[in-house]
């Protein structure tokens, strides 16, 4: 009885917060391009799309001039991806998923669930139909119809042995507690990265996992670090690089085995790996950290940006590094 009561209460509360007295559409603001932007995508060298706080979606065809696009939400958007020159998706807090089918000019809400109180942190599509959105506490949504419908998945195989046993036990004893625990027990999934036929997932508590069937089954890799990873990428030379909390950079020359720590001069959180020509790799981090490697990620040199503002994500566009940062779009001149 008490449980039912609590359930009712929680529904009422969550409905209350859902009916927040705020207009839902993002406000078109002069400073949107200077606001905290969390992701940026280079779409076929034709245009750039950046997303960030307050539902801001910005678009540019030259990397210098940016227009704020109408956005159906004020929720913070954390990640954006395009599969081709027309179709793109953006995800964010309140488990929101937006879709554009006109090259990012207009956006529609495909999915939204504020009651969950969890954000998506990354989105990836392999074609116009199949995509995956991942987020905090193991949030994992999949679509096979271009986002018309989304199915939630629980990848309990990514848990460590003890947690799996604990959940099994709980499931037998108390179904409700099991469901509640299941929704919070998984680590945050920070990035889903597809490399050919292999997909990688990195996240909280040293999570590095790989999948050979677009994320349906996962295999957790050896633990090399107990902090969070935020990005993983395969370099031009074919080696894997992953970066994360407190300046941790790991490199594997054997396809995800034998990770080796690359020492660097900063303890800042590293957000993103950006590949440039040849063996050049950039790492973007908090506190204005910009690291550059010219030897495929073996060694890095630090070039801290003067304002010390976090660099969240970057793309190479027209020979420039265009960055979504804490203070909006930044254009950084780079040399090979």
């Amino acid at each position, binding site marked *: 009885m008490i449980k039912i009561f609590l359930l009712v209460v929680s529904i009422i509360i969550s409905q209350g*917060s859902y009916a*927040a*007295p*705020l207009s839902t559409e993002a*406000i078109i*603001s*002069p*400073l949107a391009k200077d606001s*905290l932007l*969390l992701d940026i995508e280079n779409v076929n060298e034709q245009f750039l799309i950046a997303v960030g*706080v*307050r539902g801001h979606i910005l678009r540019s065809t030259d990397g210098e001039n940016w227009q704020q696009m109408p956005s159906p939400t*004020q929720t*913070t958007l*954390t990640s954006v991806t395009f599969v081709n020159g027309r179709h793109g998706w953006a995800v964010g*807090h*309140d488990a929101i998923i937006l879709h554009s089918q006109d090259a990012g000019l207009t956006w529609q809400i495909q999915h939204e669930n*504020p009651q969950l*109180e969890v*954000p998506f*942190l990354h989105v990836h599509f392999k074609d116009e139909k199949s995509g995956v959105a991942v987020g905090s506490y193991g949030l994992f949504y999949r679509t096979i119809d271009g986002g018309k419908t989304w199915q939630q998945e629980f990848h309990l195989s990514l848990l460590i042995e003890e947690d799996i046993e604990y959940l099994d036990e709980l499931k037998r004893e108390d179904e409700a507690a099991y469901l509640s625990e299941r929704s919070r027990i998984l680590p*945050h999934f*920070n990035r889903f990265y597809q490399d050919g036929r292999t997909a990688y997932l990195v996240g909280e508590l040293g999570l590095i996992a790989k999948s050979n069937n677009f994320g349906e089954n996962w295999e957790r890799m050896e633990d090399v670090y*107990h*902090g*969070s990873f*935020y990005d993983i990428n395969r370099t031009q030379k074919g080696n894997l690089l992953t970066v994360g*909390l*407190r300046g941790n950079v790991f490199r594997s020359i054997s396809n995800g085995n034998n990770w080796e720590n690359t020492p660097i001069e900063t303890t800042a*959180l590293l*957000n993103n790996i950006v590949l440039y020509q040849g063996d050049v790799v950039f790492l973007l981090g*908090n*506190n204005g950290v910009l690291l550059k490697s010219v030897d495929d990620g073996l060694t890095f040199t630090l070039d801290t940006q003067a304002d*010390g503002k*976090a660099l*969240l994500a970057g793309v190479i566009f027209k020979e420039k590094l265009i960055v979504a940062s*804490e203070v909006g779009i930044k254009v950084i001149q780079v040399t090979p």
Partner: protein
Amino acid sequence: MRPIENVINRLELTIFRHRVFVIILFLLMSVFLGYQATQIKLDAAFTKNIPLNHEYMQTYLKHRADFGGANNVLISVCNQEGDIFNENFFTSLKGVHDKLFFIPGVERTQVNSLFSPSTRFIEVVEDGFAGGPVVPADFVADEAGLAIVKGNIEKAGVVGRIVADNYSCAMVKAVLMENDPETGEKLDVIEIASKLENDIRQEYEKDGITVHIIGFSKMVGDVANGAKGVVTFFLIAIAITTVMVYLFSKSIALTILPIACSLIAVIWQLGLLSTMGFGLDPMSILVPFLVFAIGVSHGVQMINSIGKKVALGLKSKQAAEYAFRVLAIPGGIALLSDTVGFITLLSIDIGIIRELAIAASLGVGIIILTNLILLPVLVSFINIKAEKVKTPSKAQAAYQTNQEPALWRFMQSFSERNVAAVVLVVAAILFGLGFHYSKQLKIGELHAGAPSLHEHSRYNQDTFLITDRYAISVDYMSVIVETTANACTNPDVLKTMDSFQWKMENIAGVQSAVSLPSVMKIINSGYYEGNLKWRIISPNQYALAQALSNIPSSTGLLNNDCSVMPVILFLQDHKAETINRVVDAAKIAIAELNNDLVTFKLASGPIGVMAATNEAVEQAQTPMMIYVYGAVIILCWLSFKSIKAVVSVVVPLFIVSTLAQWLMTVLDIGLTVSTLPVIALGVGIGVDYGIYILSTMTQRLSAGDNVQQAYLAALKERGIAVLITGVTLAIGVSTWFFSDLKFQVDMGILLTFMFLVNMLAAVTILPAIAAFLWKKQK
């Protein structure tokens, strides 16, 4: 005989029959008030400068206890060579922090610098947070210790707030209380300012370290210091005036007496203020000048009248009695209209303007006693040698020989209709232009820095340095959010505040903004390893409560039960147009966002005060003009009982007021607390000329003269005195041009303009109007 003249005659008999008694009475009063005047103190309180009943200020006063309000001190300690990371600098900074902490009247819980325990850093490590004070308890200013502090400063995110952007300076901030905690009396801001100067700046500004102090108290202290220069100007004004009066009267006695009587008026005024418990505010320190100048100008009328009678062979006593009788009415009316002009300033709900009104009207009231009664009584004792008076200026020589000097002939032509028409057309064109441009008159301060002080003053240079090197400025406005208790953990409240902040950040002129939600967002991302994807207002109230636990109410971002929170907007500057733009935008955003749960209220902080003051000044402007003109019109009517006379006196005055507003737009002087009174003062004093001239003219007109004859008679009778009066008044205030204080310069320019141009208008436009109003009689 009219009843009023009866009264005057009776007064004259009484006064001149008891001359010795009158003098003794004045002497006793002067001794008493002279003593009182020596007791007067400089006095400046923050609340005097603000319109306390204004809606914004009610909000400010209501929440002052929680958020300190607007009376704060910022001290930036800078290293001239290199950055702050050396032992010498940290020793100085610690010294400044401790000194400021122990100054009585400083709110000790809100002293903020690198050394305050509330300045903490938080860093994310694998298993959660690590944090501590930026300057550790065991801090030693050696290489290792400084390196730790440097790292902590970066992690704490205080660069731009209490450390300069380029690491060349660090800040110590404090808030002042309204009352001294030890005595319970009103805090002596000037005393604080001198402590800041002597105990902090003098002591620590050495060896490459510079100390830059700003804040209301320091500004007032600097203004008070600048105001002391006024004494020099006062002496210069006295000297020049004395020379002028001597050139006019050619008699040492007739020079000394009006000057002395005017000085007595000043002494009485100061003495009375002191007796009534008022201090002398730097803003109203100019009033003694006005009193002196007005006193002398009426004194000149008096000795002019006496001199003429003596030249005709009367004894000085009879001459004095005659002068008293003739001048009691026009002089009394003129001074009364001055007084009323000043009293209208009481209608403005700003303490400092009211004090100015009281001080000035008191002073002018006293002049009625000293210069209309004491002066003729004193003169009556002096044996003026007729021949001395007989060789005066050309004008008077001409008067003796009954020949009109060329100047009077020329001026008389203004009362001939053909010339008068030209004068009126020119006046109308000037008025049209003036009226057009006076629409552009701006309310408020038009320049950056403290407007009372010059741009090159140390205070303003310090202000520029601090706004240049830090991301903050003293030009901030707090919009107060009133909501329910414990609203800090209600995401809807926080989101509404956040929306407001974002709307305001997008307004040109808003440099940056901070509020509880904006800080909670940063802390929230801290709980998620510093990942900025989590820089959000958590929808979860437990997460909010957790974030909140890191923010004490001493940050000034929330009160104790979290029912009141400010959104602090830092502005580029405090120019009137910036303030207006931001306030207007805030009003729109508030109308949109106010709901059952959240009420946004304007506004605290220095800009809130300025916005309120600007609005109060703007609202006061029209009523004040109506009152002052209403008073002048009524007094003119009472003394002349003629609409024609009222029109002749008031129209030139109004044209000159309009031209003065035009001048303000040309010189980029805004309508402020210090310039608003000038208009009332200018009108009140400007009316004197018209009344003196017209009082002679109406007598002649009713005796059957035509306008030209009447005007010529007025010129002969009063012309020189009016000119001397205008020049004397103008000299008195024009010495302010050289003041250290910008507002005195502005007031000086405007008053000089008003005095001179009102005089010109009274001898040109007034007769021109009269030429058309009174029918030709022959």
